[in-house]
């Protein structure tokens, strides 16, 4: 029985390691300026934890193979000092690994989430609600109109609660359900939630950020490849959560300019 267990553990270890090494189920291609740092950090994490995983599983298999079928009742060899030092040793070993990964990873995370956006970023407001995302551009005047939650009216497409009757800067605001952005230009999003927690997740951008009602949360990135990608909500936000998605459309600058002009004309 011990030998069978050792074989099964070895097979599981080899197959699962091979799946990771082959990137069978891996992240989609990175399309962001910062994504390489995230990917590098992910690889370092996978390698360091993967090496420990393989070593520990193979050690388990080895011990099971050699000693699993012994029937004389003798212990193989006790850990010096007994069980308590063994648990402390294991906790310190794993803790040191996790702490190291956290410190290194936090640096990468902070480089994305705790740096100020480029001052020339394109500013876009994002409103998340059950169960959709809406995006707002300031329009030709370059200014966002003020938002008034009590004026939100989906029937007239006033998803942000603008007051164009009194607020002239709100009249040209462009509100769309697809995040259209220019290629290679820094984008600064401002995230707001209308009702409950939501999340903004674009795997290709290596970006995931929660929306929290009452908080205004900044998020910035630069897309480096044109294309259409899915934005999904990754916070369970209600019965329609499964259908809460939008798309991000990355266009060359000239095409983006034309798109913005066309949208401005519709306001």
């Amino acid at each position, binding site marked *: 029985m011990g030998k069978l267990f050792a074989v099964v553990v070895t097979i599981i270890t080899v197959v699962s390691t091979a799946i990771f090494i082959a990137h069978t189920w891996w992240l989609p291609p990175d399309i962001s300026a910062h994504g390489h740092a995230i990917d590098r950090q992910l690889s370092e994490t996978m390698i360091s934890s993967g090496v420990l995983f393989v070593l520990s599983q193979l050690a388990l298999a080895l011990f099971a193979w050699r000693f699993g079928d012994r029937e004389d009742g003798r212990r193989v060899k006790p850990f010096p000092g007994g069980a308590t030092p063994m648990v402390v040793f294991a906790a310190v070993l794993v803790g040191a690994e996790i702490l190291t990964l956290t410190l290194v990873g936090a640096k990468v995370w902070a480089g994305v989430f705790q740096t100020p956006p480029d001052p020339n970023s394109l500013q876009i407001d994002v409103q998340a609600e059950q169960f*959709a995302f809406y995006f707002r551009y300031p329009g030709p005047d370059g200014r966002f109109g003020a938002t008034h939650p009590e004026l939100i009216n989906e029937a007239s497409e006033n998803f942000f609660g603008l007051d164009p009757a009194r607020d002239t800067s709100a009249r040209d605001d462009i509100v*769309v359900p697809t995040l259209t952005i220019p290629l290679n230009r820094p984008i600064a999003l401002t995230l707001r939630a209308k009702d409950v927690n939501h999340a903004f997740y674009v795997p290709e951008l290596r970006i995931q950020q929660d929306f929290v009602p009452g908080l205004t949360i900044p998020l910035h990135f630069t897309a480096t490849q044109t294309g259409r990608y899915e934005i999904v909500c990754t916070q369970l936000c209600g019965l329609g959560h499964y259908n809460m998605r939008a798309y991000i459309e990355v266009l060359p600058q000239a095409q983006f300019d034309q798109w913005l002009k066309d949208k401005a004309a519709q306001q």
Partner: protein
Amino acid sequence: MRVRDLMLVGGVGLGGTAMMIGRAATPPGATISGKVTFTGTPPKMKPIDMAKEPFCARLHAAAPVLTENVTTGPSDALRWVLVYVSAGDQGSAPATETVRLDQKGCQYIPHVLVVQPNQPLDIYNDDSTSHNIHPLAKVNAEWNKSQPIGAPPIHAKWESPEFIPVKCNVHPWMHGWHLVLTTSHYAVTGEDGAFRLQGLPPGKYTITAWQEQFGTQSQDVTVTGSETKSVSFVFKATPY
């Protein structure tokens, strides 16, 4: 004598004309007819981008659906205005025929639906996507039901008179109205803004026109015999 103007919507409602179909024979009694128009500049009917729901976006790729909260027609006509007898009704028999509401192309068809208390209402999902119908009733009991692809119709009815806004929880742009009226003397204007209330016994009536954004206007009208009286409603529109 009960009179009912049955409103049908042609095609999938892409700016189509709502036709007012009365009874084959004109019922005895007086008629009040007219037109609902606006002055000023109404809000733009904005194209609805349904990118979130690819099935519906494809259906409307050639001609986007427009917002319907203020729908205008030729010669300053206002569509989707309810005109009804708000006072003076001399008795309306309860309606028993089933009214149908479709969710088609991620739109409510018709946008404005009128029923009487306890009149059967069947709600269909004609789309290859799920919907979640949510009437925001305050007087009646509010409810909120999912309707997956191919699900049977939802059988509903409203007990008390109320103007109920209806939304879809999955598609925020989907918006319509269930108007629950005790009177059977009503009409909903089509693209030409016209309405016609027939079979009115002699008497004095208050005729009210309701538009979801502009509110209500009322006029008192007295009719006798089988005369036809003309009444017009003019709403003042502002662009915002």
